[in-house]
């Protein structure tokens, strides 16, 4: 199974009426979608609104999702249309290039653009989270850091990572898990203190 298969299984559950499955998809793709919409919409607060709107539209359009393309590809098209309609409704000029090819949607995200997707209020927390993640990464033992980097940044499968790190797949699994848990533990106090539970 791979990432695309997993999404498909979630979509199938959602199509059968399971809203929780859709929530898992929202949780997974929300920031990626926000990043995409920020290319069209200047105001981060509006980006949030449009992203939310796009997810609702996607949920309503689920019956017409046929699984020919990846879920995210389908989602980003809905996102772009939602953004366009929003800009038109606000009587602002929609950008002329609306055809983003799928590769760009999957493309590498620039680490320096937190500003595009954060309001001044959320910026403080976002920066703190980013800093905590980076610091914990720097302190991780090298094999844990490399494993999670190959997975999250290079998008490699466990099998490929195992080949590269010359260890069993079980070890890759364990390393990635331990890296995640180490970071999650440092994040927990931050996330719990988010009074408005926005995080």
């Amino acid at each position, binding site marked *: 199974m791979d990432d695309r*298969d997993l999404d498909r299984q979630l979509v199938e559950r959602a199509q059968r*009426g399971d809203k929780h499955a859709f929530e898992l998809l929202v949780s997974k793709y929300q920031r990626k979608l926000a990043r995409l919409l920020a290319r069209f919409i200047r105001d981060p607060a509006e980006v949030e609104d449009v992203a939310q709107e796009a997810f609702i539209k996607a949920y*309503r359009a689920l019956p017409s999702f046929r699984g020919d393309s990846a879920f995210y590809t389908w989602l980003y098209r809905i996102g772009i249309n939602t953004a366009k309609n929003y800009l038109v409704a606000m009587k602002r000029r929609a950008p002329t290039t609306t055809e983003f090819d799928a590769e760009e949607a999957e493309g590498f995200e620039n680490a320096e*653009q937190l500003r595009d997707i954060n309001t001044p209020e959320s910026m403080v927390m976002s920066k703190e989270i980013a800093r905590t993640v980076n610091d914990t990464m720097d302190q991780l033992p090298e094999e844990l850091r490399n494993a999670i980097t190959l997975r999250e940044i290079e998008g490699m499968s466990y099998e490929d990572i195992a080949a590269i790190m010359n260890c069993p797949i079980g070890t890759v699994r364990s390393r990635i898990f331990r890296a995640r848990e180490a970071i999650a533990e440092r994040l927990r106090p931050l996330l719990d203190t988010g009074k408005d539970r926005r995080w």
Partner: protein
Amino acid sequence: MEKLSAFVDGEVQDGDVQSQLARIESDAGLRSAWNTYHLIGDALRGNVSPDLTSRVVARLRDEPATLAPRRKPAGLGRWAWLAMPAAAGVAAVTLVVWTAAPIWQAEPQIASGPIAAGGTAAPGPVTAVSLSAPEPRTLASGIEVDNYLFAHQRYAPTSAMQGVVPYARTVTDERRGVSK
């Protein structure tokens, strides 16, 4: 929890998926971990922004549940590098797939090892033709040599002839204890 971590990466046995998903959806702890793990992944890619999920969830509560007919999953064949069709065109265009018969099996296998010292030691001017062949020694660490090998590789003979740098010599493979 480790299972969830693997699950997030899509690394599970197929049969398990639907029941795993059911478990995740119904368990607050697992859901929270799912959210956190994805936040971590996004953060590593430079993407941190406020969580929308709760707001979307709130709005979804008002939406009627969708019921869509079950579709057959599309086959996701992995394209094979080897399956390139031979194309018509430039002069000699041939696709050849060779079976695994090693071409060099007839040749004697040479393990890296000390070469026999040929001739007597010849101290003297550098221009002397006959020199004793020095004995190679074990490299304590392969890593130091790598940098030199890499810098040198682009000039190596096979590179010169083939325009290709095999770069197979670029990195000493400590795992196999090849350096001798």
